[in-house]
């Protein structure tokens, strides 16, 4: 079992009382699965993703990632987990504007203390895999949105993570580039990567084998949302 969430709660204090963003979420994800988490905005899906991605820790409940409990991990350990086990893809790409595609892709390797020569080699390889071998030395503002997102996916995959975590990856793209990005996810999943995708678009969600619906911080049946 790659991911095991048991009775996860996440509360945010606000004005003296606390808001329960996640309530008793339990979820198990096997290696190689392709899961979509769907829900309207404000339903808590991004908070859930932050917890799965080790950017945030639950207020209560147990989270095992690859058999390791995340709860007691310190800042440095969390950073190392994110670096080696999780690849992030964000809605607005988050590429650094001052770096070329190649340097953007190799950024996670910098934090894994890998030599410059090896970084360049592996980054070039990763860019090739997403079909951008000819865009290596381009800066983010010189390539299209779809290409930027593919660069971001190459960056997410460069450390061979156990888990690819994508938050509305097509939200800022036109439908053609969106489809390209989605087929990239499909092929990555076919190659064995576990994918968790968060979206509110039904046609995107339908590509996954499993769809979970979240509403008001709880998993619900699809019908409950409509």
């Amino acid at each position, binding site marked *: 079992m790659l991911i095991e969430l048991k009775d996860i709660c996440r509360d945010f204090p606000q004005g003296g009382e606390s808001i329960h963003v996640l309530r008793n979420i339990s979820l198990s994800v096997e290696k190689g699965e392709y899961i979509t988490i769907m829900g309207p905005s404000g339903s808590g899906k991004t908070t859930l993703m*932050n917890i799965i991605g080790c*950017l945030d820790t639950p207020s209560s409940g147990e989270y095992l990632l690859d058999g390791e409990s995340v709860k007691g991990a310190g800042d*440095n350990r969390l950073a190392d987990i994110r670096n080696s086990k999780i690849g992030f893809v964000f809605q607005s790409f*988050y590429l650094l504007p*001052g770096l070329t595609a190649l340097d953007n892709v190799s950024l996670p390797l*910098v934090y894994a203390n890998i030599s410059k020569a090896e970084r360049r080699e592996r980054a070039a390889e990763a860019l090739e895999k997403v079909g951008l071998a000819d865009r290596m030395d381009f800066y983010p503002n010189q390539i299209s949105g779809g290409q930027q997102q593919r660069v971001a996916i190459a960056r997410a995959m460069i450390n061979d993570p156990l888990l690819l975590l994508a938050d509305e990856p097509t939200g800022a793209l036109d439908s053609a580039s969106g489809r390209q990005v989605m087929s990239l996810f499909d092929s990555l999943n076919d190659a064995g990567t576990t994918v968790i995708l968060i979206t509110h678009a039904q046609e995107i969600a339908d590509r996954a084998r499993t769809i979970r619906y979240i509403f008001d911080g709880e998993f619900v049946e699809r019908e409950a949302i409509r």
Partner: protein
Amino acid sequence: MLENISLAFQSIKSHKLRSFLTMLGIIIGIASIITIVSTIKGTNEQIKQSLIGSGNNAVRLRLCQDNSEYDLSWNPIPQGVVPITEDTRAELAGIEQVSDVSLYLTRQYSDGIFYGDQAFNGAVIGTDPYYFTTCGLGLRAGRLFTQEDHARCRKLCLLDMTAWSTLFAGTDPVGKTLEMQGEAFTVIGIVDSTSIFEARIETVNDYYSFNSSTGGTIYIPIETWPVLYRFDEPQHVAIRAESTDDMTSIGQKAARLLTEKQVLPTADSKLSYKGEDLMEQAEQLQQLSNSSNTQLLWIAGISLLVGGIGVMNIMLVTVTERTQEIGLKKALGARKKRILRQFLTEAGVLTGLGGLLGVAAGIVLAKSISSVLETPTAISIPAILIAVLFSMAIGIVFGLLPAVKAANLDPIAALRRE
């Protein structure tokens, strides 16, 4: 580390104007410090040179009562002080770093010397054969005293440039006769310092700090001294040191030796030989000019402090602006320390660069001030190194707060900020 430095240069380059304005405070601070230090050093060199003269390293040792010279014009020959023998001279010459030793007698203010009806009020010095080389005096016209002149107590004399111009008004003096205490002395030549031995008196301050006789000097062979004055006067000593920096230590050594040898226990305990140390005088004058300049340095230091606060301010703005970048880096697995180091390096590079520019500006400023005001400047390499390192240290100290702020950013909040 190198990675961080190149990253820092990148971010400085991407905000050229802002980076420059941030550096400006550091540039001005460092430039003013370099300018002040250069001026201080230049002034010091000037003081040293005008007092000692470059290349002339003569230390004079004189018999003193308490701290002032024992004046033989008015006083009897002191009891218990014996004339210096040739043996003692050899012993002095044996001190390490001593290249020449001369024994001489002197009257700072003499009377009874005339050329025609022109009176001379200057110094008379009775010289042994080593005097002119020891004191760095060279011949201008005529000849120096020969061994024979010394041996036969010939009544000959040499003039320095001042004595020549006051007595002869520029006409050829060689062969002319001076009346000295009723005796006839024949002028055989003119000597002049090969390098500057007597203080170069350029300002009123120089005059007060070094007001020796300005009437000029007449030199006679030491053997003829008793013709004019007395037998058995204790001599003064001039010693030439091999390097200027050794003058003080050699002077002290020689003075101790002389006092031990020449001043008998029966003598007045206030009598001793003392080195007239030009180096020491120079240092005293230097200290005087330093103390007023140290205050200037403090003021320049304040401008550096203000510059540092400017750096902190801009770094804080930078951190706020780059929140998303920081959030992303943390999401990708950058540890706190790495973010901290990145921002510290950036601040250090920014201020280090400012320091370099400040050094350049300071050198230009110092040079232009010295050419306009005609004051000397000397660029000090250690000052430059310290200035650049210090400015980098400022960057790191004042960059610490912003860097800590960056390192502690919550990645979620940082990413969410659009």
